[in-house]
């Protein structure tokens, strides 16, 4: 399926959308397509907003962000995220802020069709008072108090994977992040893939999402750049570093997006 069609069919303004991938396999091409189609008022969910949500936020696609770590890993700030939170540019951004463990368990609860997940952590931190999706429960056996996170159930989850077969089964391998949970927690899932193969062959650390869990598979080689797909590409660390300068300035950011995203057609940056 064409990525353009998959996005326009499944993602509407105001929806809750998760583009997952923990450093590895981030679905940049799908994020760019959301930008090109001008989606607005999205609630974006991602553990690490990373450059992809920096771009979506800077382009005014997001009303709300549910996240757990908003930095440029190994580089520094996400300037568009910061500008939105600090100065409301290009529009105010409501934030719902978890720890990694909290948001991972919120996805896992969603995938298990449970209304909440239980974990240690949060106690004593200021995260609790600023996030209504965190609460406490008492263990019915020991009385110990634990934290609870409200399940995340995205309307649409998008992932990037290495392969799909002709039946639409999707396989990824390497660092698998929370993609399985994010896909299974969602109403609808879309996968972009590096390659369509006749037959998937299980391999070390491979994760398969059966065709009946994925609404649309789109063939988008390089769709994770500047993130990477193990076996197909390597992380473009230079671009991650360069982004710091690009995103620091509103003008330069907008210009870069015009040149590299808005004027392109399904080609990753």
């Amino acid at each position, binding site marked *: 399926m064409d990525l353009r069609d998959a996005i326009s069919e499944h993602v509407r303004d105001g929806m809750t959308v998760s583009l997952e991938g*923990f450093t590895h396999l981030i679905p940049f091409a799908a994020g760019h397509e959301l930008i090109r189609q001008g989606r607005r008022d999205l609630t974006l969910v991602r553990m690490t907003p990373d450059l992809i949500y920096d771009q979506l936020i800077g382009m005014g696609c997001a009303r709300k962000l549910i996240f757990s770590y908003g930095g440029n890993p190994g580089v520094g700030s996400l300037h568009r995220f910061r500008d939105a939170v600090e100065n409301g540019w290009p529009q105010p951004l409501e934030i719902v802020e978890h720890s990694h*463990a909290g948001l991972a368990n919120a996805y896992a609860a969603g995938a298990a069709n449970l209304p909440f997940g239980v974990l240690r952590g949060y106690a004593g931190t*200021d995260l609790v008072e600023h996030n209504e999706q965190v609460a406490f429960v008492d263990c019915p056996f020991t009385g110990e108090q634990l934290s609870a996170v409200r399940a995340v159930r995205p309307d649409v989850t998008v992932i990037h994977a290495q392969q799909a077969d002709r039946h639409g089964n999707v396989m990824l391998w390497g*660092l698998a992040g929370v993609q399985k949970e994010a896909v299974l927690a969602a109403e609808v899932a879309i996968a972009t893939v590096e390659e369509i193969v006749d037959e998937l062959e299980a391999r070390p650390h491979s994760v398969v999402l059966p065709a009946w869990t994925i609404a649309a598979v789109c063939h988008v080689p390089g769709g994770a750049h500047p993130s990477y797909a193990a076996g197909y590409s390597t992380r473009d660390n230079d671009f991650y570093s360069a982004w710091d300068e690009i995103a620091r300035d509103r003008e330069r950011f907008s210009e870069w997006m015009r040149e590299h995203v808005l004027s392109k057609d399904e080609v990753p940056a």
Partner: protein
Amino acid sequence: MSVGEAVEVTPEELMTINAARELRDGQVCLVGVGPPNAAANLARRLQAPGCVLVYESGAIGAQPVRLPLSIGDDDLAATALELVSVVEMFNLWIGGGRIDVGFLGAAQIDPHANLNTTAIGSYEQPKVRLPGAGGAPEIAACAKSVIVIARQSPRVFVEKLDFVTSLAHREGHTVVITDLGVLRPGSDGELELVALHPGVEVEQAREATGWDLRVADDLERTEPVTQRELDELRELRASARR
């Protein structure tokens, strides 16, 4: 900055090398990006070759040849003993209490070694919006011990945090390594300066702390950085750029 007799090191190198010295063979270390990453990989090249590196991205027992730039580098996955999902990493490995040493950084640290990585100023209208919690709250709560690495200055070492992101104040479990020296919580949990790096005076440490800093009676000196430590660290750093 001149340390000991001869070796010239940057503040970050000094902190990284002193953090690396804390690690022991066989310990399971949860490693983040930046100095912790360098410190843990340096320890593996020096006194702790059997130190087990765990990355919250899901790599257990990673043995990177080059210093990874992000915690999700392919080199980590390719050399790891095992890969697990992020949910499993946080629930069974970090939450399960299987980490001996966790590394944390902070934009602010208070007298009880609580950490702020969320925001400077008010939360709603921050002066500086920081990246946020990440894995820190659970690492602080669940690792058997924690190493905090932070440059010592009154802006960082503050009486009261603008935001409490992580609680790392458990007695005996925390060590704070700065560019001036080493702090550990005393019996009441308040941080105490227990060592100074060579050439640093107590007064410098006091001035670089936003509260009335406690100093241990038996204040020690950290060992001067050796040429071997520095060479290994610089080679490691260079490897990341290859």
